[in-house]
């Protein structure tokens, strides 16, 4: 499904119609999105720079209709992302312009998260390729100008930054680069990045298809764990279910599968025997919204220093945080005192 079909067919959106007279003044509006009363009779371009160029350009052009998608303007009454459609119409012999505003702020914010992830991954891939083709592969400082150095930062500090949303994919890649690129990490990082692009693209497709059905949750999750576990022989898994989880839930199975796959993703630093456990619970928020909670605990290493293993986990958690935010959920991360285990709590909203 294309973004346009997704927008127009599956999501509620607000729509406002504004009539602009032949002098560029606001004539009439249905006010579904913003109250136009203070602008009636005034030239729109004085308050709304978009029209300083676009009204003239449109009136000069031969087109009778034109559309501008994903517009963000410096107009206090329109703080989100909108599609604008301008149409030439005749009102009592006057050449007026009909301005239609479609509010797609929610959907464009989702799109923004995905585009951010895709672009960051692609930029990182470009830097890695440049490094590989460079003659200066022994230059420790190659990446330092583009990525923040995390040499003297503890893992717990980074986890805290992640919790406070001060941490992004570039930061998590910085950890990786500091720890792994000199040895063999570059190729693995490239593989990891292209794998993540595939995961994200699939996630978006699935989100747009939105195929909800009744699922026996413990059977389904156990089968997913078993399926993923087959490829990860060096990992010890334990899975448990808290009391109170309804036997059947209304879920999109492929979205759940995507989250579990990313949660269970094994980095190159985790080739040795590691322990991981998944506990699932069911909670309701203060407002009564039900959440399925994935409590995922994985071993790092019992040292306070950052390692390529922890770098891999940070990349994974950063991606997960963006994806779960996109569907209205949240993610919390904790690290134990010895910095030996990272616990990720993923709150997955239910319908």
């Amino acid at each position, binding site marked *: 499904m294309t973004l346009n079909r997704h927008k127009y067919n599956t999501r509620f959106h607000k729509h406002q119609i504004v009539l602009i007279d032949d002098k560029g003044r606001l004539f009439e509006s249905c006010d579904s999105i913003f109250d136009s009363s203070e602008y009636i009779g005034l030239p729109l371009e004085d308050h709304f*720079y978009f029209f300083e*160029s676009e009204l003239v350009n449109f009136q000069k052009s031969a087109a009778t209709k*034109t559309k501008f*998608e*994903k517009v963000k303007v410096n107009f206090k009454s329109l703080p989100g992302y909108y599609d604008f459609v301008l149409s030439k119409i005749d009102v009592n012999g006057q050449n007026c312009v009909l301005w239609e505003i479609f509010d797609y702020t929610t959907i464009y914010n989702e799109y923004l998260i995905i585009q951010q992830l895709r672009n960051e991954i692609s930029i990182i891939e470009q830097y890695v390729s*440049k490094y590989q083709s460079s003659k200066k592969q022994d230059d420790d400082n190659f990446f330092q100008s*583009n990525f923040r150095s995390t040499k003297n930062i503890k893992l717990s500090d980074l986890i805290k930054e992640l919790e406070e949303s001060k941490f992004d994919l570039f930061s998590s890649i910085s950890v990786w680069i500091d720890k792994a690129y000199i040895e063999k990490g570059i190729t693995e990082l490239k593989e990891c990045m292209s794998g993540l692009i595939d995961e994200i693209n699939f996630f978006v497709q699935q989100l747009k298809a939105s195929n909800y059905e009744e699922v026996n949750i413990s059977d389904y999750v156990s089968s997913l764990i078993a399926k993923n576990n087959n490829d990860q022989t060096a990992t010890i898994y334990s899975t448990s279910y808290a009391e109170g989880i309804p036997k059947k839930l209304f879920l999109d199975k492929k979205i759940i599968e995507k989250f579990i796959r990313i949660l269970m993703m094994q980095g190159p630093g985790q080739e040795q025997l590691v322990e991981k456990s998944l506990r699932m619970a069911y909670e309701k928020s203060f407002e009564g919204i039900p959440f399925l909670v994935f409590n995922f605990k994985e071993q790092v290493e019992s040292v306070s220093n950052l390692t390529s293993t922890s770098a891999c986990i940070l990349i994974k958690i950063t991606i997960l945080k963006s994806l779960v935010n996109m569907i209205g959920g949240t993610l919390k991360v904790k690290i134990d005192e010895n910095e030996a285990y990272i616990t990720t709590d993923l709150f997955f909203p239910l319908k």
Partner: protein
Amino acid sequence: MISKKVILTGSFGVGKTSIFNQFLFQKFSDKYLTTIGVKVNKKTVEAKGQEVSLLVWDIAGEVTQDKVPTSYFLGASGIIYVMDLSRPLTFEKLDSDIAYLEELLPGAAIKIVGNKKDLLSKEELLEAQQNISKKLDAITSAKTGENIPDLFLNLAEELV
């Protein structure tokens, strides 16, 4: 007052929004935040003794310009095509992109800009310039603000 529409375009992550923010608000952030669609703002500059209102459109980066909605370019007088000097992939499509923009907007002033100068050593800067198929109109750093006001001023002078 003369009013001119100016488009900031180029691949993603090259620093278009940073140039936009540096020009309009003299602000810079190290954190990369992608742009979707278009952001519009304006600033008045003085060029050749006249006040010129520059309506700056900061549009989402695309790998090739033919992917940008043509409605964004409608009536544009100036184009600032931005590349990241530290990422060669961002200048790979320069020739075809410029040819496309010249055909779409005949007569528009086009400025080719290499950004993120602050990330490169002198040697690397020279190497990057050798790999770019066209002459750069400006080498900028949105981070330090270097050459940003001049870039817009030169464009405004060309437009009046």
